[in-house]
């Protein structure tokens, strides 16, 4: 019984909050000044309740060291939830970003009149991510996944009068839809092969390498690989991420595509770490990882559109995460999960900063925003710090996760992974070139003609606070890596221990 209360407290605030936002927005239609604040406050209140509920679950999971399993009769097909440490880790990142973005959007979208749709979609998006991370079987996983995609489509298409947004959404929808169906086919094969959808149990059917089993895994990899933006399945991303409102881009790049990487670890991690699969899977993952980083970094190198540049850089980061997964060792998985945290902080922040630029001077072009930093030293400093941190220099957190990805790869002692590490280091060099361009243009360059004359720029506090929180967290992670790495490592350990062989 208490299980169902646990579930209720996690899902109800989000659901009812989302509805309440939409209804109250209609009620207060005429209070144009306060509309966006009202939506924001309800969203934040809902997030606060969610946070309390998640805190309770997390403390139980951490105290007992065992996942909370909530399920219907075992004979039924699906609908089980398994709240694991890994799920708590990922959903906490999503929650943190969602809260900051909700705060940011109050100011950012105030010009749009109503932000109700946006705030309620963020709530629903978070709930879907939560459902994915705590699902105990493939069907729940898939439903959560689809919910996440649907909310994301809505948010990409937020500027519904802009052709760019609609085109991007259609591409995203079709590609991601095909990806989902591919994954669903893979899931169907898993059920056919093993007779169960339970994530902890279906791996038993994979103890020996079978043609159907490997086909199922390939389909799941490709299917979820679309949303995870693994090259060459990433083609939708450079259109979709920039077209969305900036706070939404922060969520898309910061956590949604990383949920795809989470899916690989959660669903395939237990199987692929088996010795009989390693030789088969390691080269595939390593090649995909290296291809993804090269596509991302080389495309970002000559971008003038700041948000597109950031989107390409996210693809490159997926490559690094995938390389950690390619080790097929607990250390590599932990490093990847840790990288998800670090990347979420910084990429989230950079998109929010790009949003501030759009908010102030209405451009995404680096050429046009040149010299903005001279009008606002705070913005220049934040841009400088976050772009610097994204190149993986200490003392920021991203340094540690990149370092641990490299370390875990070299520890395996395979020639392919050694080569992949060298290529990753080359990629890090390429990324310095374009992130330094961002720093130079935004923080130091002479003001462009578009900027001349309008004095100093005053930025609303609500836009700055989330950015300061994010860079502070990145710095804290860099100084005390243990605090955020150890939970990730424990989570991976318990996930892999959960598979009963």
């Amino acid at each position, binding site marked *: 019984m208490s299980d169902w209360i646990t579930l209720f407290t996690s899902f109800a605030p989000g659901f009812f909050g989302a509805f309440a936002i939409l209804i109250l927005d209609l009620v207060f239609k005429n209070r144009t000044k306060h509309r966006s604040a009202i939506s924001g406050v309800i969203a934040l209140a809902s997030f606060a309740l969610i946070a309390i509920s998640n805190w309770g679950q997390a403390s139980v999971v951490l105290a007992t060291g065992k996942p909370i399993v909530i399920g219907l009769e075992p004979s039924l097909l699906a609908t089980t939830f398994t709240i694991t440490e890994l799920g708590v880790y990922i959903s906490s990142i999503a929650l943190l970003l969602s809260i900051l973005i909700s705060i940011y959007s109050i100011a950012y979208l105030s010009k749009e009149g109503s932000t109700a749709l946006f705030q309620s979609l963020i709530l629903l998006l978070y709930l879907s991510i939560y459902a994915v991370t705590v699902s105990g079987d493939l069907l729940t996983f898939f439903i959560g996944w689809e919910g996440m995609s649907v909310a994301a489509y809505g948010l990409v298409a937020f500027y519904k009068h802009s052709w760019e947004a609609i085109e991007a959404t259609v591409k995203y929808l079709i590609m991601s839809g095909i990806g989902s169906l591919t994954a669903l086919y893979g899931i169907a094969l898993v059920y056919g092969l093993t007779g169960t959808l339970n994530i902890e149990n279906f791996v038993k059917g994979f103890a020996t390498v079978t*043609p159907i089993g490997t086909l199922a895994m390939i389909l799941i990899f490709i299917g979820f690989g679309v949303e995870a933006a693994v090259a060459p399945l990433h083609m939708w991303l450079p259109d979709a991420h920039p077209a969305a409102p900036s706070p939404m881009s922060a969520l898309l790049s910061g956590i949604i595509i990383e949920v795809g990487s989470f899916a690989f670890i959660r669903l395939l991690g237990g199987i692929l770490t088996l010795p009989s699969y390693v030789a088969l899977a390691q080269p595939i993952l390593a090649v995909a990882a290296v291809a993804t980083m090269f596509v991302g970094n*080389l495309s970002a190198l000559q971008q003038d559109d700041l948000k597109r540049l950031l989107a390409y850089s996210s693809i490159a980061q997926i490559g690094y995460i995938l390389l950690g997964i390619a080790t097929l060792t607990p250390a590599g998985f932990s490093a990847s999960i840790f990288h998800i945290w670090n990347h979420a902080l910084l990429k989230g922040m950079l998109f929010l900063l790009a949003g501030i630029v759009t908010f102030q001077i209405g451009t995404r072009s680096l050429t046009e925003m040149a010299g903005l930093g001279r009008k606002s030293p705070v913005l220049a400093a934040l841009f400088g710090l976050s772009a610097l941190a994204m190149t993986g220099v200490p003392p920021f957190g991203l340094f*540690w996760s990149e370092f641990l990805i490299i370390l875990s790869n070299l520890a395996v002692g395979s020639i392919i992974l050694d080569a992949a590490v060298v290529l990753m280091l*080359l990629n890090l060099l390429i990324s310095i070139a374009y992130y330094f361009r961002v720093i130079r243009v935004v923080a130091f360059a002479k003001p462009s003609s578009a900027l001349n004359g309008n004095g100093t720029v005053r930025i609303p506090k609500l836009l700055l606070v989330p950015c300061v929180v994010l860079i502070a967290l990145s710095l804290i992670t860099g100084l005390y*890596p243990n605090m955020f790495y150890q939970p990730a490592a424990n989570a991976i350990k318990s996930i892999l221990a959960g598979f009963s062989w």
Partner: protein
Amino acid sequence: MIPLYAEWFVWALPFIAIPFTLGLSQWPKARDWFAAAITGIAFLLAIDLVLEVQSGHTITSSISWLSAYGFTVTVHVDGLAAFLAAVVNSLGFLIVVYSQGYMGHETGLPRYYSLVLLFIGAMTGLVLAGNFLQLYIFWEIVGICSAFLIAFWYDRPEAVRAGLKAFIVTRVGDAALLIGLVWLYVTTGSVDFQKLGTMASQGFIPASILTATGILILVGAMGKSAQVPLHVWLPDAMEGPTTVSALIHAATMVNAGVYLVARTYPIFSSSQTWLSAVGWVGIISALLAASIATVTMDIKRVLAYSTISQLGLMFAALGTGTQGGWFASQFHLMSQGFFKALGFLAAGSIIHVLGTRNMDDMGGLRKRMPITFIAFLFSALALAGIPPFVGFWSKDLIISELSLANLNLQVVLVLIVSMLTSFYMFRALFKVFFGPESKMAQEKNIHESPKVMTAPLLILSASVLVLGFTEGAAANLLGLAENLAFALPILGASIVAILVGLTPSYLAFYLHKPNPQAFVEQHPGLRGLRKAMLAGYGFDALYLSVFANSIAKISSAVRRIQTGILAKNLWPMLAVLVILVLWVVLNL
């Protein structure tokens, strides 16, 4: 006595001071002197460390960091670390004091002083680091600081380019260093210098892995210490303010590589391959850089190439594999730090009043700027290695140790470097301070720099004169067991080499008989050589065409993949499916 925790505060204090420096921006004078005071205190703490460890005992203090991997934050102070900390902080302090005058009229000083504090603090942290990982982290921070300080005048495109170049070129070395240290960790399960040293001496680490990781770490050291072929960033780094050049060349950045090799000596020096790699990298860099310095017109670039050359001598000394050579490299590091800081600050004093770096626009400055003249003269004499200046002692120690190790070819080559050094330094001295007064000097009616700038010059001048006599004390501090090598024939050869370099310099640039310009034009061989040297032997052009341009081309090609056409985007999905299925079928 109250415990000072000097081993922590000596590097943490500058970091802690940064927010206060930024907070004092309303009162610029207070802020600038606050920064100077902090570096002064850091210097006193460094001296305290030297006093604590001089009797041979070491301070080790550590806290847990990333427990899953057993990484700790460890400060380990021994003679070497304390010696380096004292060099870094004494020079850092003098340079920050000098900055009060030199940078006084600049804007962007909050950025300048925060970066300088970070730079000095990180460099001190680097030399006190007890393990590889911690050293690497400070190593990276030092790199960032240098890049941003070189690009301090960000309105000048060449300054920004030089900053980025410094960062990327040193990061190439850093990548090798990173692989090396991770490889060592994967093999031994430790990054601690002490533990690794013990394991290596007990033969626990396979020799092939020692050599390979040692070479990778050497590449990292070459990047930071600007050794050929990773030296290309250093001459361009002259685009930064002169105080920054002094910091980079004397107190911080470039010393890091030499220090790293010295620090890892107990680990790798059993590998003969590694030792000869270290030595030859040094010799080649010393020769190439010294030859380029003989033709450069920019006074700061002359000093920059001389830095590369002097660092090369330190690597050469490390290549001997003996304790004496090891000590010689560190003593020369200190010596180079002082006379190079002096050289840069003197050059800065000239640039400050004259506004140019081209030596053809200088000349005859001796009378108008007597203190600067003395300073530059002392720096040149020390650099050329004339007794009793500190450079004489340290360079002769290197040559003696090389000859003691029976590396006779290297001894000859170092003597040639010594000859070239004396040639180019006296060339600079004659061109800048002797001869008729230049037009520019007359038009601007220049005079000596303010006291806040000349005081550090005088202190440094006195230092290069007396520091040579601290050789015994330094050897004691660094725990040198054997007696220092000293051979009279070497001394004679070295003096002859200096004179052989000085004579043509005197003839050409003081007496103008023959006129150097005309002389080179008459000899096609010399003309070609001069052209090659002025182009830096083509390293820059090579890197630009091979790396930068080809990456830009590939990048354009990759962008063409992104058609934005949905139908085309779906094909790769099918292709991936087919490839993966084929891969599995072929491997089952």
